[in-house]
Structure formats: C-alpha cells, structure tokens
C-alpha cells in the first residue's frame, strides 16, 4: 500500500466535496449551531440524513473538543452509521468564529464535516483531509475562500487536478 492512502473510495477529496456541500459565511451562535450548519450541508449533498447531524453533536458531547484538530478548524464527524448514505464531506466557513472549548485551537471559523459508511473509508478520508490541512498556507487559503468554487479549486490544486472530474458530478450543470 502506498503513502497516499489510496485504499477505499473515500480518498479523493474532490469527489467527496461537491459545491452543494460547501457553505460560505454561515451564521452560528455556538458550536452546536456550527455543527448543525455542517450537517445541513451533508444532507444537502445527499451524503447523510438529519440523524447524522445529531450523531456528530453527540460525538462532541461524548469525546469533547478533540475534533478541533488545528487552529480554527473543527472536524465534525461521527462513526459510520445507517444515517450515512454514502461517503461525503462538507465544508462550512463561519461568519463569526465560535468556541468549542479546545485548549489551544479555539475559536473555530471553519467546520469540515465528514461522513463515511465504514471504518476503512472513514479513516482513509480523514487521513487525506488531515494531510490537506497540515499545510498552513492551504488552511489560510481555505479560510479566505469567498465562494464554493474557490474551495473546489484549492482542493483540485492539492490533488493535482483530479478533483476536476468528480465521480458524482452533481455540479456539472452549474454555469
């Protein structure tokens, strides 16, 4: 197995993140509302049902703020469950940052949501996403992105253009 974690269908970020799953400037008064915004984006893209949103919130209630994995960035997710229809990601930037209760990485201005139907796909998608986020320049560019298309092109650049041919192509009709 190679270092790019290519196992599993979940490894391509571009394929997992259609424009319908990207929300720029969402309003959230607290971390629950921030995760709800991420949940809505996952539902809008067809990846999950509403129950998964509640599961993501329950994960934070149970595990604490560990999901704030980098300064300003929360990774909302829960275990594989029946509420996950297919692997998917969403990305939500917040109009105003919110506190999650993390010692060093608060406040959060970007919530990335992740859903996967099985453990292998879940961990692979997490790994690819985490790798994208390790670069400070990429993180800063994500936070600055003013529209979904910019987010998609950042990811496409990271993936060497592969994200230009998404598997599901839900946005192909966009002007």
């Amino acid at each position, binding site marked *: 197995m190679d270092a790019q*974690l290519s196992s599993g269908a979940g490894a391509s970020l571009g394929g997992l993140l259609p424009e319908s799953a990207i929300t720029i400037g969402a309003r959230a008064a607290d971390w629950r509302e921030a995760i709800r915004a991420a949940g809505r984006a996952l539902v809008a893209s067809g990846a999950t049902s509403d129950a998964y949103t509640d599961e993501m919130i329950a994960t934070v209630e149970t*595990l604490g703020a560990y999901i704030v*994995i980098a300064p300003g960035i929360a990774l909302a997710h829960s275990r594989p469950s029946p509420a996950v229809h297919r692997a998917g990601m969403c990305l939500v930037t917040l109009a105003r940052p919110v506190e999650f209760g993390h010692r060093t990485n608060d406040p959060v201005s970007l919530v990335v949501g992740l859903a996967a139907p099985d453990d292998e796909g879940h*961990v692979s998608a*997490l790994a690819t996403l985490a*790798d994208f986020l390790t670069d400070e320049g990429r993180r800063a560019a994500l936070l600055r992105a003013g529209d979904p298309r910019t987010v998609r092109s950042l990811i496409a650049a990271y993936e060497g253009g592969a994200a230009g041919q998404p598997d599901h192509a839900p946005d192909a009709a966009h002007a």
Partner: protein
Amino acid sequence: MPSIDVRVRNPSGLHARPATTFTEAAARFESRITIENLDRSSRAVDAKSILFLLTIGVLSGHRVRITADGPDADAALATLRDLIEAGLGEAAEA
C-alpha cells in the same frame, strides 16, 4: 534513537478518543516523538499532533513504529507502548 514497533489493537484505531489519549500522553514528554504507520508505509509524523496523527490513517490491526529523541525517550516509549497495548482506554468490542 530508540524506537519500538507495536500493533494497534483497539477497535477504532488511532482516531477519535484513542488518538487524543495517545497525543496527550506523548505531549507530556520532552522528547521529540514521531510515529509512522508500517502498514501504510507512511511518513514519520509528530506524535504530539492530532492532525498529523490522523494523516497516517491507523486502523485496528496496523503496526506502528514510534521513535523518541530526547532526555526522556525511553520512558516515553515505554509509556506509549503500554497505552497502545492496553487499548488506549477504549473498551474492546465484539
């Protein structure tokens, strides 16, 4: 530099709570500590960072190599091996 190879046994591998438990334990040592996933031929990444730990995608059953460099390296490795072998605080599932 001392290093150990150990198999991750807890059900969810190194993410979620177990990953947090691991990075917090690593962070208590002064030594520079890295971890690589031998089953993915991953890079050796900072074991004190949850973000970097997630990049190496450790599932249950994977073997990892932990390397420590510093005054408390041996104690760090012993502690981290014990933690992983004890299941990182995660109850074993059927």
